[in-house]
């Protein structure tokens, strides 16, 4: 026991001290935080330049019908030919020239936006939705319906399905399908990546010991099984430290970045952006969009506060560690059977198939977390670490969690035992690439 701790200590310290570990630990949260903060930042920064667009309207019906925003202005030019504008465009202050052809109502190609740069999708979609709305309402007007405006505004509806969970004690809890789905997706994909990342680290560690010929020196003082377990557990400790640091650093960075970048006088700005965005979407009609939007955000916040974070984080760590231990043992067995990393591909295949299968099931599980496919794959230990994590944010009956967890524990003990037997033989054999069939024979050797 003392010796296994020594092995764990070495495996842990040599990895944690590596430059690559430190870089990974620091860069990944920066990347994560960047992914969260940058889009928000862009939203506040975008289109601060006022842009003028000249409009040549052959139909003569759109003047004043394209809504202007704070940063986007339209000037309708009369009696001007587009070709003439082309000559003078570079001297003019216009950002672009919008040409609306006569056939706009019938031909979708009749509208052209000329510019010397590539206009952003915001601008083109703003224009196209404005023109579309105008044409549609013109067409409607042509039917000569009485009280058209009232009819139109009275038929405008917005439907959102709120989800409320009834717990056993008769409580009603606000939940959010979007939130559950987002969490399920991120967490299960994370489990998949981390199992791969740290599982292959175990394999590389075993190959390193073999190829550097240290292994026989070590196994004369430590049982091969202890050496294998020490490596697996040492890397597990590395993974836990890394995950915790990632979570802490990401939260820290996001909080720091949002207070630094967003709060300084940009509350107003972001508010403006939201309203201007809404103006663009809502066009001229008054829609209770603001109300709808706010209620969605509120709903998300209540749902977030109702999420059982203890269960989700606990489940995440349990199923990640369980899955890691299961796969790490198999990766160790593969590492013991080869002399260098290039030979591993063929042997690693059977290990990766269940992981990839789990990811496929995960995608379908996002839609029907209680379907029979999701259920069965969340019980099979080779896929349960990923599939169960997918189901967890939607709520899983306790007995299923216990059953799946127990199966995982039993299986990893069995697999570790088998892998230990392969490892014991494999690490001392050099010079040949071994097959799974041979490894099966090693399992049957007596110690």
């Amino acid at each position, binding site marked *: 026991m003392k*010796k296994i701790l*020594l*092995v764990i200590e*070495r495996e842990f310290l*040599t990895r944690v001290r*590596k430059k690559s570990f430190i870089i990974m630990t620091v860069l990944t949260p920066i990347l994560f935080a960047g992914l969260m903060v940058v889009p928000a930042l862009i939203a506040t920064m975008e289109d601060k330049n006022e842009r003028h667009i000249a409009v040549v309207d052959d139909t003569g019906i759109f003047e004043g019908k394209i809504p202007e925003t704070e940063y986007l202005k339209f000037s309708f030019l009369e009696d001007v030919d587009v070709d003439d504008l082309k000559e003078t465009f570079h001297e003019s202050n216009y950002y672009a020239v919008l040409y609306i052809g006569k056939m706009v109502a019938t031909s979708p190609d009749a509208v052209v936006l000329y510019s010397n740069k590539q206009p952003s999708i915001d601008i083109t979609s703003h224009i196209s939705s404005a023109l579309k709305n105008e044409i549609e309402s013109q067409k409607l007007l042509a039917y000569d319906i009485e009280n058209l405006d009232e009819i139109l505004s009275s038929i405008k509806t917005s439907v959102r399905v709120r989800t409320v969970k009834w717990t056993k004690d008769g409580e009603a809890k606000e939940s959010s399908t979007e939130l559950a789905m987002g969490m399920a997706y991120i967490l299960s994909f994370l489990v998949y990546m981390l199992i791969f990342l740290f599982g292959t680290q175990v394999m590389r560690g075993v190959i*390193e*010991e073999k190829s*550097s*010929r*240290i292994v*026989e*020196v*070590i*196994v*004369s*003082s*430590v049982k*091969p099984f202890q050496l294998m377990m020490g490596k697996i557990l040492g890397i597990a400790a590395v993974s836990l430290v890394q995950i915790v640091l990632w979570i802490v650093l990401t939260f820290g960075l996001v909080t720091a970045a949002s207070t630094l970048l967003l709060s300084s006088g940009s509350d107003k700005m972001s508010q403006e952006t939201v309203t201007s965005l809404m103006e663009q979407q809502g066009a001229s009609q008054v829609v209770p969009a603001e109300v709808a939007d706010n209620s969605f955000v509120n709903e998300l916040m209540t749902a977030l506060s109702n999420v059982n974070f203890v269960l989700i984080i606990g489940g995440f760590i349990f199923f990640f560690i369980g899955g890691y231990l299961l796969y790490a043992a198999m990766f160790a067995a593969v590492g013991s059977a080869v002399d260098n990393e290039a030979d591993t591909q063929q042997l690693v295949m059977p290990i990766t198939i269940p992981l990839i299968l789990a990811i496929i099931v995960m995608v379908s599980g996002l839609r029907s977390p209680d379907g029979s496919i999701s259920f069965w794959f969340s019980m099979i230990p080779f896929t349960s670490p990923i599939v169960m994590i997918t189901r967890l944010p939607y709520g899983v009956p306790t007995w299923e969690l216990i059953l799946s967890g127990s199966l995982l524990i039993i299986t990893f003990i069995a697999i570790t035992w088998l892998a230990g037997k392969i490892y*014991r033989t494999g690490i*001392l054999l*050099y010079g040949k690439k071994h097959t799974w069939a*041979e490894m099966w*024979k090693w399992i049957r*050797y*007596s*110690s």
Partner: protein
Amino acid sequence: MNILTTSNIEKRFANHLALDDVSVTVPEGSIYGLLGPNGAGKTTLIRIVNQITGPDKGQVEFMGRPIKADDIYSIGYLPEERGLYKKMKVGEHALYLARLKGLSRNDALKKLKYWFERMEIQGWWDKKIEELSKGMAQKIQFVVTVIHEPKLLIFDEPFSGFDPINANLIKNEILDLKKNGATVIFSTHNMGSVEEMCDHITLINKSKNILSGPIDKVRLDYGSNVFELAFKGQVDEVTIALDGNYEVVSHKEDAGIVKAQVKVHQFSTDNRLLKQVIPVAEVVGFKQVVPSMNDIFIQVVQEYNKAHGHK
């Protein structure tokens, strides 16, 4: 007393028998040579003694009782396939291996300091293993093999990778360890060092122990039928004087003295050979020719393989 006894060890791998009824007895305080061609089963036997693998049949006794898991603390093993973690620093690596052998951190540091000074490698403590040459790494490996002062030391090809100066240094260290009471088993193909250092040998061939015993006895046994006769006189006369039991195999003349190798077909303890020579020549020297271990190795292995229908 015998520090190590293996009796009737058998070990089978998937499709071949690695050890077949192998028994060896290693007397305490001796240097014991484990010889044999490549693939004969030496390393397997050493691994069984180190409890890296277990035998299918047979027992290993250490200090007169069946070997226990804890006995690895009393054994130091330098494998033939030896290496170190390339990315670790020399000092922490040596400390790690010493602690795996059961030393406390403080004890390990103290002993490492002593050995690093003794081997004149103090300056390497903070170097990375990958910066060392092969010979330098071998010194570290030697130090960590002996650091816990084991009663039994097992060296598998200890001299490979050393330059002659360092090989000599290691040889003297091994002899010193013996002087301090340790028992040494070593496996090598270098027959010169076997003759020089070993007290006992065992020759393993094709999974079997085919020759065992004190080295002097083994050499004399195999040398009992050739004598070197030095005399003043004519070779032809001597040849004629000898009866059919003796045969002059070769001879050379140097400054009037002829040295002839005489083969004895049927060994007898009387002085018949000398009696036949003395009348025709003046004998100035007479000794039994002790063959080199190299010759014995080749002869025994070839005879065995011929007798058992191997190539």
